[in-house]
């Protein structure tokens, strides 16, 4: 027979109210800047730059977006560039980090912890410090002014976090799974692909998501490495489009550009967040 729960264990209605009020306030605070930006992007250009800020536009308008579409080589080009680099970054990062994470998690080899430490050191140097040497390096191997070269650099900077995630994810896989497969006569490769991958898929998706966000939003390398305008990515175009003479800013265009930059990230995140959360769970638990 189960005794009724003592009073102190029952959640109080006051706690419930507090929960919803606090959460709603926080959610509004977090959401507001993004929502306001997108809302402003839909105002007519003159009203978007109104001073002081007006709260209710006279009408909704897509002219800010139209301005961006006509800008330079057309926004479609820049989106394609960004997508291309992001795709390369995601695929490359996943490939490298799954392999390396598995290697670090399940094998012993000389200097293992040293190698891992070296991989992690990549986190501690700011990109700005090695910008020029990287530029010269890329140029030497004819990958400067190439979106592929840009992608390779992005992959490199994603490696510490991604390998760390995958290593933890693989370490959390129960050994019984592997041992059963090995008893069936699996090679290491098949073991990885057929057996382990499905189990660590949430972590893989997390790694992919982060690689996408990093690549999609990165600006400095894209600006410095690309020489041709048609190879610029979205963030570079955004900076061009909203800056005018002597630092004047086209606010409407800026918001439209921000919307185009932010929305894909938000949407992809919303679609995949289920995996993302469980990915971090399997990734961080030790």
């Amino acid at each position, binding site marked *: 027979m189960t005794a009724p729960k003592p009073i*102190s264990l029952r959640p109080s209605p006051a706690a*419930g109210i507090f*929960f*919803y009020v606090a*959460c709603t306030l*926080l*959610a509004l605070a*977090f*959401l507001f*800047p*993004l929502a*306001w*930006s997108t809302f402003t992007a839909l105002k007519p250009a003159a009203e978007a730059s*109104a001073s*002081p*800020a007006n*709260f209710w536009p006279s009408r909704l308008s897509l002219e800010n977006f139209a301005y961006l579409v006509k800008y330079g080589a057309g926004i479609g080009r820049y989106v394609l560039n960004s997508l291309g680099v992001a795709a390369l970054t995601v695929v490359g990062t996943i*490939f*490298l980090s799954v*392999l*390396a994470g598995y*290697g670090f998690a*399940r*094998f*012993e*080899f000389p200097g293992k912890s040293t190698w891992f430490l070296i*991989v992690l050191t990549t*986190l*501690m*140097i*700011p990109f*700005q*410090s*090695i910008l020029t*040497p*990287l530029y010269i*390096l890329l140029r030497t191997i004819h990958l400067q002014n190439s979106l592929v070269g840009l992608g*390779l650099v992005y992959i*490199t900077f994603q*490696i510490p976090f991604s390998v760390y995630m995958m290593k933890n994810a693989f370490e959390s896989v129960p050994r019984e799974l592997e041992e059963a497969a090995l008893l069936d006569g699996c090679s*290491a490769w098949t073991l990885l692909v057929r057996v382990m991958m499905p189990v660590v898929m949430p972590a893989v998706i997390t790694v992919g998501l982060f690689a996408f*966000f990093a690549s*999609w*939003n990165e600006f400095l390398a894209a600006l410095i490495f690309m020489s041709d305008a048609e190879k610029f990515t979205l963030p570079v175009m*955004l900076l061009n489009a*909203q800056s005018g003479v002597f630092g004047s800013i086209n606010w409407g265009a*800026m918001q439209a550009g*921000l919307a185009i*930059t*932010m929305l894909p*990230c*938000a949407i992809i*995140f*919303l679609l995949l*967040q289920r995996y993302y*959360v469980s990915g*971090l769970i399997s*990734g*961080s638990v*030790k």
Partner: protein
Amino acid sequence: MTPHTADLRLAPAPRRASTKGRWTGLMFILPCLIFVASFFMVPLAMTAWMSLNNWPLLGKPSFIGLRNYADLAADSTFWSSLWFTTKYTLLVTPAIFLVAFSMALLVQSKRKLVGLFRTLFFLPVVIGLGAASLLWIWLLNDQVGVFSAVLMRLGIVKEAVQWLGEPNTALASIIVMVVWKVSGFTMLLFLVGMQSITEDLYEAAKMDGAGWWASLWYITLPLLRRTFALALTISVIGSYLAFDQFFIMTRGGPQNSTITVVYWIYRAAFTYFKLGYASALSMVLLVILVVINLIQQFLLREPATRQVQTSYTGKEGVS
């Protein structure tokens, strides 16, 4: 019931300690090492070499040994940037952790809509620091920004506030922006850590009459130590390397009051065209970060996990 995470750490070493296993392991990590070596180690080595030269961006380099390092020691702006970056880190880290932890506590409950809230809290994390900086410049702008407009409408201020105009409000504004953007990620790390604490511990505590605060203090916090250490490491490194927000929002102003170390490195390289000097600064920064990291690892090292459970179990036995 999920096995406690400590068990996995005590699992026996993998069976494949044979030679075949050794090489296989290396093969797996080789592609990643190739990338790190090519696109990181090589440029890093070049930077180290450049730091020993007078290397103008335009022109011919010349070897000068450790002169750059001597100049660096005498560079007052470098030291104030180091101090400022430390100050910034000391301010922003507790802010992020406080907000993130509170949100994690809130979102941990199993009430309705908790998934939606969790998503919204996390949303700013995905949009990119550059975009976030531009967004907040706009929000804080005195002419077109909504913050000033709202404050004026409500009559709290008569004139638009120059958020980015005074050193203190500029720093505060940037901190608010960073907290807004980053807390969701730290919150998730905490959530993940909390998930692995078994319910039984809380149930048992409640049986003993422990209130909400006591179970937080004696169960949650100690068991989150590892998560906390990880989050702290990531956050501190990130704060020390802060650049984008200061570059975009204040350009080191007002009156040079918000110059971070990486911003100074960027200027040395790309405004003053002194690559050699910038490289020396970078090397020093790297050393500083490694030292900070070592200190952190030392201070946050795990005591044996079992102790927490034992002490609690002991108490239970007594009552």
